[in-house]
């Protein structure tokens, strides 16, 4: 049923039956364009060796994104992803992947500087959540700070404002009146949210450098708690050295339903990463994170050391050592171990 729905959606976008006379060149990493429509995506294969657990090889993501620039009022975009499929596991046993509709929205361009976006979006909270495709991020492991404490997808309406001369910060307001559309399966998320509002301010400092601040307020479906979150993020470049960091602080209040346990009323995370370009192909990366979940007694402390090799623009090889301490194994999504990956934009 879900696959049939996706085919119908793609057909509505006109992507399945493009006019042959509009066909243009395809180039790897650049996607495929036909008239007003385009199709692109990425794939990532990950080898994971958590010390003390069976090693495995996963199809981390196979993601397809498609969009169209049809008119001022019709600019649809969608991303569909097949995620976390075990290919080989030491000692046997396979975890099957899930199909997920990551994004599905339409942009209406109100003016040169204002866009109204309706549908399912990635919430603009920090930088990592907005751009987390494996070929575009320096680590295999996504930080807790950029994923756990807030609604990462908003389903509803969003207003984006930006001035091209950068004379004032860009901002994006969003409102999710109910729960997530195309809800992800339980294997993909530990928390679900409803009635979410938020705003993100972004001050560009150059092509890639920026400073951002975020606010989000909503309700957790599982525990009934309300939360208010403040976030900060920065990307700064100094020659061959790129620094990035994100921080969140959330306050939780209200009902806690049976089966859940609030240890404290606040949740805190901060994450910092240094990426040094040794040559255009080789990058050395050092990252550190602290995360205190409001439902877990101990905090998580993580150090990652990684090497990226980018032989060409659309592809990247990564090797990563992770040291994790301070949290019971039942909670730890990130364990001490080694990870390697190959990712490709297509």
């Amino acid at each position: 049923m879900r696959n049939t729905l996706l085919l119908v959606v793609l057909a509505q976008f006109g992507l399945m039956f493009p006019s042959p006379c509009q066909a243009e060149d395809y180039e790897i990493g650049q996607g495929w364009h036909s008239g007003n429509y385009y199709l692109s995506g990425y794939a990532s294969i990950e080898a994971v060796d958590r010390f003390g657990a069976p090693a495995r090889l996963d199809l981390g993501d196979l993601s397809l994104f498609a969009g169209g620039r049809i008119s001022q009022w019709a600019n649809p975009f969608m991303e569909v992803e097949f995620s976390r499929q075990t290919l080989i596991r030491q000692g046997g046993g396979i975890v099957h992947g899930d199909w997920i509709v990551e994004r599905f929205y339409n942009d209406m361009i109100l003016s040169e500087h204002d866009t109204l976006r309706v549908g399912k979006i990635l919430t603009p909270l920090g930088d990592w959540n907005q751009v987390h495709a494996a070929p575009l991020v320096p680590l295999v492991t996504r930080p807790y700070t950029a994923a756990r404490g807030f609604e990462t997808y908003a389903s509803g309406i969003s207003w984006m404002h930006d001035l091209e001369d950068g004379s004032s910060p860009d901002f994006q307001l969003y409102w999710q009146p109910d729960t997530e559309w195309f809800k992800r399966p339980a294997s993909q998320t530990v928390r679900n949210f409803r009635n979410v509002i938020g705003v993100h301010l972004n001050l560009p400092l150059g092509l890639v450098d920026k400073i951002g601040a975020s606010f989000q307020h909503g309700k957790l479906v599982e525990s009934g708690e309300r939360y208010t979150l403040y976030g900060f993020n920065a990307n700064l470049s100094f020659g061959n050295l790129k620094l990035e960091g994100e921080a969140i602080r959330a306050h939780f209040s209200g009902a806690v339903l049976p089966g859940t346990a609030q240890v404290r009323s606040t949740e805190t995370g901060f994450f910092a990463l240094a990426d040094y370009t040794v040559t255009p192909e080789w990058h050395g990366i050092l990252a550190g994170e602290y995360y205190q979940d409001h439902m877990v007694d101990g905090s998580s402390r993580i150090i990652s050391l990684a090497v990226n090799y980018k032989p060409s623009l659309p592809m990247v090889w990564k090797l990563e050592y992770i040291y994790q301490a301070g949290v019971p194994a039942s909670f730890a999504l990130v364990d001490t171990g080694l990870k390697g990956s190959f990712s490709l934009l297509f």
Partner: protein
Amino acid sequence: MRILLLIIGVLSASLVQAGGLLIVVSNKVPDNKISLEQLANIYTMKKVFWKNNIRVVPINHKVASEERKRFSKVVFNLSPKEVGDYWNRLRYEGKLPPVIQASDQAVLGFVRKVPGAIGYINANQKLTGVKILLRLP
């Protein structure tokens, strides 16, 4: 054969260096000149419409071309790979990066055909059916 290709490569690079680049647009674009900052805004997808509400369609050369190296350096002071990383992020964010064309002739053909198109070509090209907005060194 390799030596011949090397000579051709060096010569074409010299031509780009010597003549610079022209920023060309369709005759349907109302603007007659453009600043370097406005050009950067177009190629970072911040400016998406011309004054007459025609959508801006920027065109790129291939990542390894001398023209793109020159353009990336003059407009952004970055390498094509660094600017390419930025465009890859834009594509993931749902924005369509510049269309790629393989040669000056292909760029000119695209600009003549698509009303809001803007591209860069070597200054030694013969021009018909397009407007020059800016000359880059």
